[in-house]
């Protein structure tokens, strides 16, 4: 018990240090890297959303990029003034993006969880299939720019000026921190505990009188909204959207980030996204073809041997007070 307590304390320290380091990065690092890390923070938010449903509730989704892409396309379509009546406001764009992702997530959850519902492999394959369908459909859509996508998405501005790298980085860091607090709060709430119980044995939770379908839907929708938010932030920084943002490839990429980072701990998932994308950026040029082989091996080894990922144990926080044994 004492050991566990100490482990929790190191987790708390590590978590604090991690955020302090990320704050420091904004001062110490040059502009281009900062812009890069700001993008990775988008992925990090995306990863935290996935960790909520996968790590906490045990729902393995192979289609999370649908919602990331929905957010990105939603933001692009709104800010490019392709919809009547939305104007080109950034805020409207964000609201529209997150709203679109939320609605889609809710629709998919409604489709798959209703009734006896789908779980496990069925859910994984159906989401995989959904991602493929959405990707093909968007590729076919002339309105959405087809395979080439839409470009010229407006960046975030302040008083008519494009926001520079450093402030942009701190905005992203702020959003990521807020999401981290939110997801962590959910995970540590009684609701989070029930999700964890669903992960271990859904039937048992259902027998206890919980409506697991609704609980899972809520988690899935929250994750979808976070994916949409990250997608919108991504589109604003990258300036383009294309079907590759909502297909199978990105869906599996985020699974790798989260698995390697640590699926059950939101911060570990986020750091996984930062580290894997960062490593990919630096190593893919040097290792060439070997890079994919290396990431494949790391991924398999982590899945087999380290269920908590590389950082899951490091960032594990002490259990919430109400669950602590004294």
């Amino acid at each position, binding site marked *: 018990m004492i050991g566990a307590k100490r482990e929790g304390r190191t987790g708390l320290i590590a978590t604090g240090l991690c955020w302090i380091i990320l704050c420091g990065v904004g001062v110490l690092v040059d502009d281009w890297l900062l812009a890069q890390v700001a993008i990775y923070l988008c992925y990090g938010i995306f990863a935290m959303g996935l960790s909520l449903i996968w790590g906490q509730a045990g729902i393995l989704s192979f289609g999370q990029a649908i919602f990331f892409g929905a957010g990105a396309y939603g933001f692009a379509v709104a800010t490019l003034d392709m919809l009547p009546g939305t104007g080109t406001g950034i805020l409207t764009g964000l609201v529209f993006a997150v709203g679109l992702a939320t609605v889609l997530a809710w629709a998919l959850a409604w489709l798959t969880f209703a009734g006896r519902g789908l779980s496990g492999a069925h859910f994984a394959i159906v989401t995989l299939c959904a991602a493929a369908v959405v990707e093909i459909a968007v590729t076919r859509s002339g309105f959405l720019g087809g395979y080439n996508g839409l470009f010229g998405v407006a960046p975030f501005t302040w008083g008519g000026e494009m926001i520079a790298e450093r402030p942009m980085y701190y905005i992203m860091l702020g959003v990521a921190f807020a999401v981290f607090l939110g997801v962590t709060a959910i995970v540590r709430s009684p609701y989070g505990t029930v999700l964890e119980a669903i992960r271990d044995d859904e039937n048992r939770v259902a027998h206890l009188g919980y409506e697991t379908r609704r609980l899972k839907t809520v988690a899935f929708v929250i994750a979808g909204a976070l994916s949409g938010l990250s997608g919108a932030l991504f589109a604003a920084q990258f300036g383009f959207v294309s079907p590759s943002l909502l297909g199978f490839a990105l869906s599996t990429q985020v699974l790798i980030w989260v698995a390697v980072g640590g699926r059950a701990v939101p911060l570990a998932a986020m750091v996984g996204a930062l580290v894997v994308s960062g490593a990919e950026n630096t190593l893919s040029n040097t290792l060439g073809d070997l890079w994919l*082989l290396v990431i494949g091996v790391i991924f398999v080894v982590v899945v*087999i041997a380290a269920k908590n990922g590389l950082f899951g144990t490091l960032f594990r926080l002490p259990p919430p007070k109400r669950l602590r044994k004294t």
Partner: protein
Amino acid sequence: MELFLDTLNYFSLLMLVVLGLVVIFGLMNVINMAHGEFLLVGAYTVVGITGAGYSFWLALALAPVAGAVVGLLVEALVVRRIYHRFLDTILATWGVSLILKQGVILVFGPTAQSVANPLPGVMNVFGVDYPRMRLLIMAVAILLTLVLYIAMFRSNLGLRLRAVIANRDMASALGLNTRRMDMASFGLGAALAGFAGAIISPVMSVDPQMGAGFLIPSFLSILIGGVNSLIGPLFGVAAISGSSNLIAGWLSQADTQIIVFLMAMVVIRFFPEGILKRRQK
């Protein structure tokens, strides 16, 4: 008639791929995302052997061996360690697929490889001129399916396999060496995939992305048919290939794919146990 043959053609292709998946999924409850890459192993065995000057038929005979070797390695190194963690097997085998695909690229390069058609020309069946290689694939697919199913339902080995599929714990408590059966089934599934990859290599592009296009249709076939059924996937494959071919008759292939996938998702949604299971109950 031709429509029937065309449907049978896709049915055969898909069935060849699905057979190995059914064995692995049914017995071990492992969703093998690397199955498409086991196809690659077979197809590139053909590329290697025919490239060295030997005949296609020799390559066809060796491809299942190559598939089985790779399959057994994957089983021993990866799947054995996590087969009780159901969802993780999906992830791990998907990682394996990355590794195999990249391995093929490192050895053979990324470009498509040429496998000459060993049976060029057409043959007249039921009044339709049909490519001979396609006819061979159909014949082999149907024959292999029949042999496999007869073995499953008529031999003692098949009985053992079915017992493990039906109730793994009970089969083990009766004395069936489930460990060895797992290896055998993974090896067999991979050998079937290797064979499938080899025999389809003359009719399509042999390149590192070759297996990817089969992933979704073959898994949908299995889910539609019902995961713990051996007969079900036959119907699943028939449903997917039949509807694809019919719809593609008047719509573009891209639209067809969207419609077929959507229909399959709806079917799986309402019959999670497979279309057959519901009817029985």
